[in-house]
C-alpha cells in the first residue's frame, strides 16, 4: 500500500483518466452502437446509473429527461442519445469541478479534514501534504486523538514526507491539538496546516459538537479559520453519502469534498446528487494507494468511468 511494496501499478482509474475524452466516446459508443432507441435501451441506461450509485430518483429523472427530448424529436438516433446523456451528466457536475488553489494569503492556511470512520482522511492528508509540499511548507495536526494509533499513523506520514507533525497523546482534546498546530505554524511561518480529525458518524451529535468546537477554537485565532473544511467520502458509499454530506455541511459548514477509493469497481455515482443538492466543489478524487494517486476531479472522465463494466467477466 502507499507505493511502499508494490512496484507494478495495476490498471486503474488513473489510466482511464489519462485517456480521458477519447475513452469517453469509446464507452458510450460501446453502449449505444447499433442500438435503436427503445424502452430496452433506456432501461439499460437507467440500470447502469442505478448500479453506479447515482440513486433511483436522480436516475429516473435523468432518463425521463431523455425521454422528453426523444418525444420532442430532439434526439433521433442512438449517437444523439449518447451525446445528450453525457451532456446532462457532465452538466450536473461541471459547477463542482473546481481546483483547490491555495491563495497567497492568509498564512497559515488551515485545511480541516473530516469524515466518517474509514473514509480515508489520514491517507488523503498524506497525499495532499505530498502535493502541497512541492510549493508550500506544510504542517500536520494529529487531531484524531480517539482511534488507537491514529496519531502514530499520521506521524509515519510525517516522517515519510519529512513534514512536521503536531501531536498530543491519544485521548487529548482534538481542538487543543489543532489549536496548537495553528499557533505553531504561525510562529514558524508555515504556509499550510493540514488537520486530521477522528472519523465520526454524522449521526453522533456529541462528536459533531466536537468538530464545532474545533472550528470555534480555530476561529479565535482567525475568524476565517479553518479556511477549508473538506469532507472525505468513501467512493464505495451508497445513498448514505448524500445524508453524510448534508449533515456535515449543516453542522460544521463544508467547503469541499474529496471522493476516495475510486480505483476499485465502485463508481461513486452519489456525487451527482451531492453536487446537485449541495453545490459544493469536489476538489479531488482518490484513485489508488500511491502517494501521487490523488487527482483533480474531472467531470468528463468521471462520467466516462461510470459506464465502464464493473467486472470483466
Amino acid at each position, binding site marked *: *500500500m502507499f507505493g511502499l511494496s*508494490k512496484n507494478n501499478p*495495476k490498471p486503474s482509474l488513473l489510466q482511464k483518466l489519462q485517456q480521458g475524452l477519447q475513452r469517453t466516446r469509446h464507452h458510450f459508443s460501446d453502449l449505444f452502437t447499433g442500438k435503436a432507441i427503445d424502452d430496452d435501451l433506456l432501461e439499460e441506461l437507467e440500470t447502469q446509473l442505478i448500479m453506479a450509485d447515482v440513486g433511483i430518483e436522480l436516475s429516473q429523472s435523468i432518463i425521463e429527461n431523455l425521454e422528453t427530448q426523444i418525444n420532442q424529436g430532439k434526439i433521433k438516433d442512438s449517437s444523439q442519445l449518447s451525446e445528450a446523456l453525457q451532456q446532462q451528466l457532465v452538466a450536473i457536475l461541471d459547477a463542482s469541478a473546481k481546483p483547490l488553489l491555495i491563495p497567497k494569503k492568509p498564512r497559515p492556511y488551515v485545511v480541516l479534514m473530516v469524515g466518517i470512520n474509514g473514509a480515508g482522511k489520514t491517507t488523503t492528508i498524506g497525499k495532499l501534504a505530498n502535493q502541497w509540499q512541492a510549493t508550500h511548507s506544510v504542517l500536520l495536526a494529529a487531531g484524531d486523538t480517539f482511534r488507537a494509533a491514529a496519531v502514530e499513523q499520521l506521524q509515519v506520514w510525517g516522517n515519510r514526507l519529512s513534514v512536521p507533525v503536531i501531536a498530543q497523546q491519544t485521548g487529548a482534546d482534538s481542538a487543543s491539538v489543532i489549536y496548537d498546530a495553528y499557533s505553531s505554524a504561525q510562529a514558524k511561518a508555515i504556509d499550510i496546516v493540514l488537520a486530521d480529525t477522528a472519523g465520526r458518524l*454524522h449521526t453522533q451529535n456529541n462528536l459533531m459538537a466536537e468538530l464545532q468546537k474545533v472550528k470555534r477554537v480555530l476561529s479565535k485565532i482567525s475568524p476565517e479559520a479553518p479556511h477549508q473544511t473538506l469532507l472525505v467520502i468513501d467512493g464505495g*458509499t*451508497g*445513498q448514505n453519502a448524500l445524508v453524510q454530506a448534508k449533515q456535515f455541511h449543516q453542522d460544521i459548514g463544508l467547503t469541499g469534498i474529496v471522493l476516495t477509493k475510486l480505483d*476499485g469497481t465502485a463508481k461513486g455515482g452519489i456525487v451527482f446528487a451531492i453536487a446537485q443538492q449541495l453545490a459544493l466543489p469536489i476538489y479531488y478524487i482518490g484513485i489508488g494507494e500511491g502517494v501521487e494517486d490523488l487527482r483533480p476531479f474531472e467531470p468528463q472522465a468521471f462520467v466516462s468511468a461510470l459506464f465502464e463494466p464493473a467486472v470483466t467477466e
Partner: protein
Amino acid sequence: MFDQLSQRLGKVLKQVRGQARLSEANIKETLKEVKKALLEADVALPVVKKFLEQVRKRAVGREVMESLTPGQVLIKVVQEELVHVMGDENQGLNLATSPPAVILMSGLQGSGKTTTTAKLAHWLQEREKKKVLLVSCDIYRPAAIEQLQTLAEQIQASFFSSQTTDKPVDIAKNAVDFAKKQFIDVVMIDTAGRLHIDQEMMSEIKNIHKAVAPIETLFVVDSMTGQDAVHAAKAFHDSLAFTGVVLTKTDGDARGGAALSVRQVTGQPIKFLGIGEKIDAIEAFHPDRFASRILGMGDIVGLVEEVQRKVDKEKAEKIARKIQKGKGFDLNDFREQLLQISKMGGMAGLMDKMPGMSEIPDAVKNQANDKEVGKLIAMINAMTPQERIFPAIIKGSRKKRIALGSGTQIQDVNKLLKQFKQMQKMVKQVSKKGMGNMLRGMKGRMSQGMPF
C-alpha cells in the same frame, strides 16, 4: 440505522393496508414502491430484482386469497422473504476445531477490520471465555500494527507482535505456531484492507488463508456500501470462500441494503453487526430482527436481550425485594433506574429498538434525549439522603438548592418530582396487582410526558 428504510416501507405498506383488496395490478404498483425503497437502501439492483420476483411469486395466488387482509399478507411475505434472504436465523462463530481456532479477517480498506477484530476478540473473551491471541498482517497501512496492539492491550488479549518488514504469510504462520504452544483458544488474524481487483493483494491473502487454514474467514463490510458491495463480496468470496460477514457502522443512519446484497450474492451468513465506537459495540446478527427493523416492527427481542445483559441484576433484585417488603420506591431507586437506562445506550439506543419508533418524528425523539436523563440524575445527586427517601419534604428553599446544585431550574425539579410521583404510583400498582396492570398503567402515562 434502517430507520429510513423502515419509514419508507412503513409508508408504502400503509398504502396497501388502506386498500380493501390486493389485485395483481396493485401488487405490481406496490412492488414498484418496494423496489424503490430497496434501491434507496442500497440493495444491489440484481438482488432487488430477484427478491421482488420471489415476493411476487409468493404474494400472488394462494397466500393472498386465503388472507384476512391483503395488507397483512404482503407485509408478511415481504418480511418473510427478507428474513429468508438474509439467512433465516443467526449463525454464530464456528470454533469447533482442535485449538487454536483461527479466524481470518478480510475486507476493503476502511471497512473496519481492525476495530472489528478487537471487538470480536473482546466478545470471545467475555461471552465465550476464550483465550484470544491477536495478530496483524497489515504491514502496509502506517501504524496499523500499533493500532491492533493498542486495542489488544485495552481488552487485555494476547498480542503477537509483527514488523512491517515481515512477510504477512510468515506473520500469520508464526502466530498460529506460537498459539499452539501457548494453549491459546482463538487466533484472530487482522489483514490489510485491499481492493478485490488488486490481484497481487488478493493472492497474498489467499496465501495466508492457505497457510493457516482458518475455520472462520470473515468478510468485513461497511453497512453504508453502495451497489458495489456485490462485486467486492463476490470477488472476496471467490478467492477466500469466506464463512461469514460482519456488517459495520450500523449505528449510523444508512439503510444497510449491503447486508442483503452480500448475503444473496455469496450465500454466506451475516454473523455480527458493529454498532458503535466502543469496544463492546458488537452484536450477533439476527435476520428476523433485522427484517422486523426494516419493516418498522422494532427490535423487541434485541431490546430484551440487551436489557438482560446490561442491567445490573443484583440492583434490580434489590429494588424488587424492597418493593415486595412493602417499603416504598424512593428517589434512590429512581436514580438507579436512570443510571441503567444510560448504561443501555441511553434513550436513543432504547427507542431505536421499540416498535413503531420509526414513525415518530425525529424532533420528538430528540426531546427524550440523553441530556434529560443526565439532568434527572444530576438533580437526584444534588439531594440529601433524607430528601431522596422522603421527597415530600422538598419545598421551596430545598428546590432552589437542588436546582442550583445540579445546574438546573426549579421547574426542572418540579417536573422531576411529578414524574417520580407517577412512577411511585405505578410501582405501587405492580406490587399490588402484578405486571399486567403496570403495563396498562404505563400506556396511559407515557403520553403525559414521562421521559421514558
